[in-house]
């Protein structure tokens, strides 16, 4: 009797399983791509004139996936494409996704497209996520993951069919509009969201973003260093050029810092400062050079020409102060010599002989992103960062420079614009 019951039970189970359970011979389902939509922001490649990353942002098997960005308070939308490899397929399947930040993409019925082969396609339609990214909060998801599932029985049982991973940035507010130089570059999103994660207030965003610069190690979205004068006379002066070539002048670091604030929708006008000597006349010439620390002042040989600027260097006018291979100052004669001093971004000994410099100014504080330092006032810059003032003139093939280490003999002027 017991044996009969046991056989009957097994027979019932087998019969039941065969008639109603999913047929997992359909299990050869592959995620092909994922497209984000619904108000996502256009992120530019880190190139001069860089194009916007296209969709689909996730492509299975691709070596890199495209980044995605939204403004906080918006729910992401996602669509996905799949293949199923099977001789016989159902007319429809159900698909759903579970995203990071507990954002779910609800179940949708997807038509399995007919095919002459065993491989069929089906598409999960663009579907708005179950909730928005928290309003007014910066977020970074590296990666933003969606675990995709399929059901062959109308949603009773589910089976994993792949995971998509994309870097996803959430800005606190709508980014400021692009201009000629301010662009929504990938690294601008990355530095900003990486550092200001979970921040809301303007001051918190600014402070956290600034922390990227204070250790003189500024990294792009890929973890690569952004150099301040790796080549000592590098001519790159635009934000796009800094991000493309990862080596540039001061203008670009000021722009990068301000761009990482603007991308969060933080508005600060009169934020971009061009500083240069006031052009006071000394010994008949305009003071228009300064030396950033450190330079050593040796024996002065130029007092006969200018007693107040007695240290004299000369160089070949045609080749300038940094001839090939562009890795050090080369003078014909030199009373002052360049030493290691204030390190710049990813460079312990950047260029340091200048006519001008560009920095950011926010809420009254001067932010020098090249060196990762701040100054409370314009006048404090020269004492904290300079070794001396200079003027120069060219005569024939030689340029003569005269210097002083008396910082009271000139000052900085500033012109202020809005980046």
């Amino acid at each position, binding site marked *: 009797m017991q044996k009969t019951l046991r056989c009957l039970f097994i027979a019932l189970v087998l019969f039941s399983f065969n008639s109603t359970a999913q047929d997992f011979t359909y299990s050869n389902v592959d995620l092909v791509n994922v497209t984000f939509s619904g108000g996502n922001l256009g992120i530019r490649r880190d190139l*001069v*004139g860089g194009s916007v990353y296209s969709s689909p942002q996730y492509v299975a098997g691709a070596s890199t996936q495209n980044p995605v960005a939204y403004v906080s308070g918006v729910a992401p939308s996602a669509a996905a494409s799949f293949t199923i490899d099977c001789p016989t397929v159902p007319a429809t399947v159900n698909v759903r996704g579970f995203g990071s930040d507990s954002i779910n993409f609800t179940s949708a019925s997807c038509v399995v497209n007919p095919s002459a082969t065993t491989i069929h396609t089906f598409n999960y339609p663009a579907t708005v996520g179950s909730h928005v990214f928290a309003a007014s909060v910066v977020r970074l998801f590296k990666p933003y993951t969606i675990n995709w599932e399929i059901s062959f029985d109308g949603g009773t049982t589910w089976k994993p069919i792949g995971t998509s991973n994309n870097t996803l940035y959430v800005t606190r507010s709508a980014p400021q509009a692009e*201009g*000629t*130089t*301010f662009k929504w570059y990938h690294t601008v999103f990355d530095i900003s969201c990486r550092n200001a994660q979970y921040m809301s207030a303007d001051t918190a965003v600014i402070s956290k973003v600034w922390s990227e610069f204070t250790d003189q190690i500024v990294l792009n979205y890929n973890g690569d260093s952004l150099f301040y004068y790796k*080549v000592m*006379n590098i*001519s*790159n*002066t*635009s934000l796009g*050029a800094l991000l493309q070539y990862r080596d540039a*002048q*001061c*203008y670009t670091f000021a722009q990068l810092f301000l761009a990482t604030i603007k991308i969060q929708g933080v508005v600060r006008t*009169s934020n971009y400062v061009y500083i*240069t000597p006031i*052009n006071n006349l000394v010994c008949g010439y*305009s003071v*228009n050079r300064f030396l950033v620390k450190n330079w050593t002042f040796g024996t002065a040989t130029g007092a006969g020409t200018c007693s107040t600027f007695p240290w004299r260097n000369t160089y070949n*006018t*045609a*080749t*300038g102060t*940094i001839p090939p*291979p*562009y890795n050090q100052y080369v003078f014909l004669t030199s009373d002052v010599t360049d030493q290691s001093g204030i390190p710049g971004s990813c460079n312990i000994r950047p*260029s340091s*002989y*200048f*006519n*001008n*410099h560009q920095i950011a100014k926010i809420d009254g504080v001067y932010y020098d992103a090249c060196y990762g330092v701040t100054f409370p006032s314009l006048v404090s810059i020269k004492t904290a960062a300079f070794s001396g003032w200079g003027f*120069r*003139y*060219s005569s024939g093939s030689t*340029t003569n420079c005269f210097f002083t280490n008396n910082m009271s003999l000139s000052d900085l*002027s*500033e*012109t*202020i*614009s*809005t*980046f």
Partner: protein
Amino acid sequence: MRKTFFVSFFILLSCCVFSQSLERKIIIQNGNYFFTTIDELTQLATLHIGKDTAKLKNAKLLAMPVGRNFDDPIIPFSWDLVDTSVFAISFFLHPLNDRNEAIKRMNIASLKEPNKTITPMDLIMLSVDMNPFAYNDPYLFVTRRSNTISGFFYDAVVVNDTSFVMAISNNGELSIWNYNGKEWKHSEVQKFPVEGFFSLFTLKNKTYLATNVGGLYEISLKGIVAAKNKSVGTNLLSSTLIINKDDNTVSYIKNSDINQHTPLNELIKKYAVRIF
């Protein structure tokens, strides 16, 4: 790596330079045309020269040790030429480029054709140590008057051997400057809000200022007055001025009508609109 970059740069310069927009104007002098373009990466200018009966694409290229930046808002390259000299206000961004020394005068014969032996850095170094034609007093005046830059634009032209005229605006104010080879004189500062860049041109010893929205004014040290019954009639952003010093005419041509495969004189005949 750098060598590869420079070689690539000059190959690209030779092949693709015309894809860059013309800076403000085409000048015709002694049967030759002259125009300039700016390389977006290096910010350096190239002077294009050819017969006015020749196609623009066949122009001879000369690398200039001057240029301009791409900051917002754009101020197109300010340049002019008289006889064998080309004048420019060199506002490219570089930590050694002194804006006070930005006004340069170059002999056209001294300019070299682009080649791999002259790197952009060579040109920049040449520029920053080139003695200025005149100190840029207009710039110092304006920035000392207000160190906040807003609506900042400038342009300059050479009227004759003893008159270099510059107009400069900031914060809704405009002033006119004249350098006579020894010293600067300037007009009263005048309220003159501009919504974008303006361009100057000279005709019969008079200097005119064309705004980017089509306005036309006669300028002098006495000030600025609207040109009677005249307007440019076009947006400067989408057009290029044609200053013909041979027949003393001024016209404009829409940028979309500039075909580099067509001789300039045919382009002018077909598309140019006369202002004077």
